């Protein structure tokens, strides 16, 4: 549950005057969810990168960027599912770390184990997502606490299991998706599998969000009471969102593990980077607003920003400061522009009988 800032509540009369006269529909649609804003920001960053390093847009460097960015894009898709349904998932960073460590330990360098272990990782991701989702929806623990808890649990349990440092090794075939690609593509050189996977997942996510499930999910994030009254099984769609997030984190783990192998620090802090990416894309914390494309663009923007920092030889220590300012500025800008304003949370009246019982309807 988002701690919504409380200052945006309108008067009790429903006549606060929030009607906007019809802006051109196409433009409005483009601007909706902040897609335009983040696309512009991304373009801007790419332009600056290009001036610094013109060769960046020649195939291989761009593909190398794509390879690096793919895991965050995938994590952002997962985080988007959860955020748009009105919740948070802080456990993804820990989950990525845990999955890589699990993979290394169980595969232990044996090629034959690769596929079974990937299957097992998927199951594990599913279980983590189910736990996050069911604890949040059925036990009504705020998701920030639930996923904070799973974050601690995963972090501790995996280290306990491996005695503190990862053991074992990944097999070569495990590393293919994250590290290699389709060779000999004209101009690009190598088309990384990571990019292919991220593209497939992004396209899949776009279709998912246009499906009945996707629309139910967004409606739930926007107004879970209305969604419940419309027959949406709120607990179910939210739990599915958490499962989606955990599965995406698992895929990201396969790519990250494949990209760079096992180190003890894998996944640290990824949850905040992923949330940053999603929010930068104009997806509103609290749910109901923003598109998956915007979230993907947000992830690319974050990665491009890191690349830019590097190109500019910005001391790596100052990068967090710039990152912090940019996300505050981006969200403030979005809040200032009417179209991204936080959803007008209607006053929750605990005295109202239906709101509570339905809002958390749990059958």
């Amino acid at each position, binding site marked *: 549950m988002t701690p919504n800032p409380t200052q945006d509540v309108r008067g009790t009369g429903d006549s606060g005057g929030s009607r906007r006269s019809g802006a051109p529909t196409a433009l409005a649609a483009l601007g909706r969810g902040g897609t335009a804003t983040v696309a512009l920001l991304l373009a801007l960053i790419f332009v600056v990168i290009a001036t610094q390093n013109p060769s960046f847009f020649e195939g291989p460097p761009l593909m190398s960027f794509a390879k690096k960015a793919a895991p965050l894009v995938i994590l952002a898709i997962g985080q988007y599912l959860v955020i748009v349904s009105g919740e948070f998932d802080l456990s993804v960073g820990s989950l990525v770390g845990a999955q890589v460590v699990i993979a290394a330990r169980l595969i232990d360098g044996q090629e034959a184990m690769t596929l079974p272990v990937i299957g097992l990782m998927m199951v594990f991701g599913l279980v983590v997502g189910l736990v996050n989702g069911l604890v949040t929806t059925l036990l009504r623990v705020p998701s920030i606490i639930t996923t904070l808890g799973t974050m601690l649990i995963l972090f501790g349990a995996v280290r306990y299991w491996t005695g503190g*440092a990862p053991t074992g090794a990944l097999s070569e075939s495990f590393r293919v998706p994250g590290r290699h690609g389709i060779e000999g593509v004209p101009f690009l050189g190598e088309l990384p599998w990571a990019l292919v996977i991220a593209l497939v997942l992004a396209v899949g996510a776009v279709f998912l969000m246009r499906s009945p499930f996707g629309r139910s999910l967004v409606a739930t994030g926007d107004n879970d009471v209305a969604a419940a009254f419309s027959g949406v099984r709120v607990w179910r769609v939210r739990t599915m969102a958490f499962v989606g997030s955990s599965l995406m984190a698992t895929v990201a783990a396969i790519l990250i593990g494949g990209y760079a*192998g096992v180190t003890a620090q894998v996944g640290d802090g990824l949850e905040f980077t992923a949330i940053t990416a999603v929010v930068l894309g104009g997806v509103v914390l609290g749910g109901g607003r923003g598109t998956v494309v915007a979230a993907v663009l947000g992830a690319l923007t974050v990665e491009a920003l890191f690349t830019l920092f590097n190109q500019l030889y910005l001391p790596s220590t*100052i990068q967090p*400061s710039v990152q912090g300012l940019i996300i505050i500025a981006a969200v403030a800008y979005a809040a200032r522009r009417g179209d991204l304003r936080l959803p007008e949370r209607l006053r929750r009246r605990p005295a109202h009988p239906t709101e509570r019982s339905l809002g958390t309807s749990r059958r």
Partner: protein
Amino acid sequence: MRVPRVLLAGAAGLTLMLTACTTDAPADSPEGGSGAELTPDEEWFDEAEFEAQLAQREIPPEGPEDQPWMQAIEPEWIDTSEFVHDAPEDATLCFSNASVSNPWRVTGFITMEQQVEALQEEGRIGEFRVSDAADDDNQQISDIQAFVDSGDCDAIIISPSTTATLTPAVETACESGVPVVVFDRGVNTDCMVTFIHPIGGYAYGADAADFLVENLEPGSTVLALRILPGVDVLEHRWAAAQEIFADSELEVLGHEFTEGDGAKIKDLVSQHLQRGEVDGIWMDAGDGAVAGLEAFEDAGQPYPVIAGEDELSFMRKWKEEELTAIAPVYSNFQWRTPILAADMILAGEDVPSEWVLPQEPIREDELDEYLERNADMPSLHYAKFGGEDLPGFPEAWTER
């Protein structure tokens, strides 16, 4: 909504100024991905200590040659008879550990536990209590305080998480009258009975830097990969490297903080490779060295000359790809020494007041030997862990 906008701009500007202004002062910080600065930070560079450590590399240590963990360089033996324990088999050793949050510490801690078991079986020490501070300075201060207050400890061993911040706590421990043994990172006091450490960060950084200078043509480019700022043992390594690179004709492309995260290392190296050649890699710790090398593979570029660490995945890669490489060593076997020192102290034997352990890098000629010795060991294990003669070998390390 004009006000917020102005406010935002103002706040942003102000904060940028705040964060940026001090970076302009070169005396303060050796910043620069641009790599121009090769003057070691005064805060971290102690010329005398630097020279001393370089010299110590050449001094043959005292002590049994097959037990480097019992060797000491230029020891100053001190009498510990005041700490003699009547019944050492009942003596309680208390160990305040900073953490086991990285593979080096994990390996070391297993060695330590095995050493404890060995001594317990011999009836030379009794209970062994450990508290782990999970890298939290404040937690470790509490942990040490708890040991002191409990009054059960007959010796306190401390592996401080940070040098400066743990000083008061170590002093408190000393004041309690119990013998205190400090190892790995130091503290700003000499109240403990003995301070055990390998030669040090300067020597480590110098070993690595010297190797690069020797093996690279003048004018070659070197990229420095560092873990975190502000950790003294790591800062010393970098300060020594800066000193040596400054006197060389190598071009340092920059130094980057990686948090030891393989993905970050690989990404950073890839980006540098996009912009130009990288001939040498200097690392302040070997974590993720393999990821860095893979960036060269993936970019289709020849392997660099690299200074990693005695971590096995790196050494195996070295062997496989026949790299020009060195594995500087921050002697992992030092984890055995504090237990042995405590045992000696409780027995009233003399110990060196500052116990400087040998610290020799693994060079190409010893590579095969160390790989063979550690053939069963997992990756992320450290070659010079020095536990081969302990009873739990090898299961304790392979099946952690």
